[in-house]
């Protein structure tokens, strides 16, 4: 249970970048899971894949629902860009800190499109293989590969822009 909760919470948190929303979404995932448990069949693949699918669908629903709010927010943000500006002047040992990198990745993830974001999260943060991601996203393997590739490149550029150096 704890392992599944953490997986769902992490996926939600990496996708939304908001702890409060991730907590609510995680709870909603399990409620939905509970209601649809009877419809779970082995044909849906592994339980983890199914769990990830349910979470992902809910995240996309949530993303669409809150798009309007976010657009308004981002307009507000543009008025004070200094707060979110990259910090290239930091020392390398600070950047090496794992917690900081995690926060920077989190920040960069929010800047790429949701299609690329979810693909990178599922592959590189959740460790799913291409076949599983294909099932979760319901898109062909070529599309999955191309989104992961595109997502990594955009993320790498954003992080470089933030001053993160490659190891």
């Amino acid at each position, binding site marked *: *249970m704890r392992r599944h*909760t953490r997986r769902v*919470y*992490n996926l939600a948190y990496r996708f939304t970048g908001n702890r409060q929303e991730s*907590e609510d979404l*995680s709870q909603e995932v*399990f*409620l939905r899971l509970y209601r649809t448990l009877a419809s779970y069949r082995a044909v849906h693949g592994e339980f983890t894949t199914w769990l990830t699918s349910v979470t992902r669908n809910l995240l996309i629903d949530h993303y669409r629902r809150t798009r309007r709010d976010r657009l308004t927010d981002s307009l507000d943000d543009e008025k004070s860009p200094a707060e979110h500006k990259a910090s290239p002047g930091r020392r390398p040992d600070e950047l090496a800190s794992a917690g900081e990198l995690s926060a920077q990745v989190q920040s960069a993830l929010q800047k790429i499109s949701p299609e690329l974001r979810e693909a990178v999260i599922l592959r590189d943060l959740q460790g799913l293989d291409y076949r599983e991601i294909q099932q979760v996203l319901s898109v062909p393997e070529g599309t999955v590969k191309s989104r992961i590739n595109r997502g990594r490149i955009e993320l*790498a550029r954003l992080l470089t822009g933030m001053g993160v150096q*490659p190891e």
Partner: protein
Amino acid sequence: MVWTCLDTEERLSDYLEGVLAADERAAMEAHLTGCASCPALVADVRSLAARLPQLEQAVEPTWLMFRILEATSGAVQRKREVTWKRFFAGLLAPRFALGLGAVAATIFILFQALGINPKKMTADDFNPVNFYRAADRQAHLTYARGVRFVNDLRVVYEIRSRLQEASATPSAAPQQPEQKSPTSPQSEHQLKNDLLRHGPSVIAVSALAGYSTGGLP
């Protein structure tokens, strides 16, 4: 094979994962040696792809799991309500339906016995005191009817035995052979008819009156 920067971008993950065909790989590496921007991109993405899986996981608050458990046990309760409905549907199964029928019949008989009219039923009917009174009244009524019936029977048999006595001693009234005696077959037949029509008590009284005027000893 001509390899462009765009090709590098498109096949970067395949290259890093080592799934590029040999000729493509050679072409890309050749491009990388001569390109000014691509090697940096490859280094950045390689580093990112290596570091991302090692990022520590976000830790959910401890109460989250309990909140989820609580919420999903609420779902269990909702499910139980549904099973209650199923339980009531199960009452329509033949064995329960028969049982219900038997209970209904018992209640009907009890109502009849207690003199409760279901159409004019009031809350008072279910007051234990009234329950007792109604039962008591019904019992007394039944007893009284029984007593009356037995008494009537006794009178009828008494009359019959006297009539038989009278017919067994015809010499008792030899002087009036033409007079209609209550012992004659016709009068006995009449008595039966009257019995059927008016009930035993009335006939008994009138018969006794007839005896007294009939000049019995």
